């Protein structure tokens, strides 16, 4: 168990591509941190640098009290779970799990005990003598988890470990992984492009975009006060509505198409602006703002209404007991639930 500290970490590939811009953050001991972002945002590169599979161009990486920039991956006392499991196809489940321990000169009886214990924890006891090819996707995933936990590492690294599973299994494993990490109390860094995984699993989320950290915060902070339109639209499904608007000198907020929104304008700003409203922060059938509904999506627990507000694409989500049809209906905006962003750089005002 350990704290992980990144100081001025920077990655440039030999071909000149800057995968990760200079960044610094500290992951606390026992914390579950999720790196989330679209593909190519640098989240995997960051994780692989922590693992030692990728060189660090610049900066200092500490695991515990130790600077590990030049330490071999095997000597960093970490364990990694890969997207495609990366099990050794020629070894049995037990050997797969014990291989890392064997190389540290741990006695055979002790390895067996640890493998048994991990297998019990993961319901793999009956499969210890099987080869990975004889297991289902979910079982392979468990073996990969088992391989990570038997080592009792300082740090778990997860590289999109659930993305090869079907949706139902993914939800189940999500909970299992989180529960396991809680129980063991091991620091964990988890990479995903799935914002639901990020929101549900993380103690803290780091949102990345184009090699840059957009925001670091708890799931609640990220959701309720997104630092930029990127974070606002990436985190949350359906994404936040972002509208082009203008703040007049007398503090009225008007959409570009002329519709005035009944919201309090930000104090420090005037001129062109972006207004963000989450789909659930609206009430149908009240207020004065006309919302033109074109499509209704049935989600079971909710209904999603897609259409336009003042000529700009807009979505509203309502409860299942709320009848909804197409056509124009008035909506009211929940007070205080409106976000303002700069139109120049997309950052929060």
């Amino acid at each position, binding site marked *: 168990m350990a704290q992980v500290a990144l100081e001025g970490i920077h990655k440039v590939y030999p071909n000149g591509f800057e995968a990760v811009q200079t960044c610094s953050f500290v992951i606390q001991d026992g914390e579950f941190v999720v790196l989330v972002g679209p593909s190519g945002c640098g989240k995997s590169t960051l994780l692989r640098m922590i*693992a030692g599979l990728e060189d660090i161009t610049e900066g200092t990486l500490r695991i515990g009290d130790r600077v590990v920039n030049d330490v071999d991956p*095997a000597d960093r006392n970490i364990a990694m779970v890969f997207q495609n499991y990366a099990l050794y196809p020629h070894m049995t489940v037990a050997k797969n799990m014990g291989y890392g321990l064997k*190389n540290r000169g741990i006695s055979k009886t002790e390895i067996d005990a640890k493998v048994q214990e991990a297998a019990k924890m993961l319901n793999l006891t009956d499969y210890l003598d099987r080869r990975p090819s004889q297991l289902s996707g979910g079982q392979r995933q468990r073996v990969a988890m088992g391989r990570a936990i038997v080592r009792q590492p300082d740090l778990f690294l997860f590289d999109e470990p659930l993305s090869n599973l079907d949706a139902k299994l993914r939800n189940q494993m999500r909970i299992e992984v989180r529960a396991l990490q809680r129980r063991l109390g091991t620091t964990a860094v988890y990479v995903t492009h799935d914002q639901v995984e990020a929101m549900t699993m993380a103690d803290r989320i780091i949102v990345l975009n184009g090699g840059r950290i957009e925001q670091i915060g708890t799931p609640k902070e990220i959701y309720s006060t997104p630092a930029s339109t990127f974070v606002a639209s990436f985190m949350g499904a359906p994404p936040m509505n972002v509208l082009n608007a203008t703040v007049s000198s007398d503090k009225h907020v008007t959409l570009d198409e002329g519709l005035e929104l009944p919201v309090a304008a930000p104090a420090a700003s005037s001129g062109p602006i972006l207004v963000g409203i989450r789909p659930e922060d609206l009430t149908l059938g009240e207020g004065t703002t006309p919302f033109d509904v074109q499509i209704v999506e049935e989600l079971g627990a909710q209904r999603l209404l897609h259409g336009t507000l003042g000529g700009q694409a807009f979505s509203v989500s309502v409860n299942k007991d709320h009848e909804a049809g197409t056509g124009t209906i008035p909506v009211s905006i929940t007070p205080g639930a409106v976000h303002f962003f700069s139109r120049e750089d997309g950052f929060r005002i």
Partner: protein
Amino acid sequence: MKRAGFTNPWLPILLLVPQLSIIVVFFYWPAAWAIQSSFYLQDPFGFGSTFVGAENYTDIAQSIEYRKVAWFTVYFTAIVTFLSLSIALLLAVKADNVLRGAKTYRTLLMWVYAIAPPVAGFLGIMFFDQSHGPLTRFFGFFGWDFKLGVDYFDTATAMIIVAVWKQIPVNFIFFLSGLQSIPRSVREAALIDNNSGFRRFWDVTFPLLAPTAFFLLIINITYAMFDTFGIIDTMMKGEPGANPMTLVYKVYLDGFRGNDLGGSSAQSVVLMVLVLVLTIFQFRLIERRIHYT
């Protein structure tokens, strides 16, 4: 599974005829002829033959010279197979790690594959030439008076070197593609599990290469035993006297130089049985083991 059927029973036979006729003309017919003539003593000038029963076979079994050639074939095959496999594997592992200029490096290594065995043998003769050969001179520095085609051991060494050199590219290509088909993440998992590159290779990489390696082992044994004929023929420069040779070469030598067609046929029947055993062994083992997925 759905089975496709032919409405006309003659059509499948018709479609098989070209393939079958090739096998019959170039394999079964000569093979049958060899088995038959191995029981006869042929007149060297073609004036008929006498049935001698198994005498040709007992001759082989008792011949000291045949035993000597057989042992040389065993050593030659073992050494050529071992060296060409291990050197190719080493080169493939190194090539797999090369990031810059990888293509050039691979192409250069594969070129040798395009050289015909007799040409390879001829290049060997030039390298080991008594007065001008660079390798002869090189050995001379260490006080080794290398005599190709005169000294049994020296000729054997030269044959092995050329045969190995000729076979490395094939093995290299297979090993390299085998290495590249190992998932990157499996190697990375090993990187996290084990800090010794040497142990990682033998624990993870090599077992995953085993199907390739076993296939190549059979291919290389066959190569060393049979396909090196051209190299051997060229390098002994038509003077089989005191020079080493393989069993296949002896079949040719006894049959076409010594005009002992019966004895030569008996030898080729022995080789045929050997190939048969090797093939069965290969299929049995390949089917049974070494496949993981």
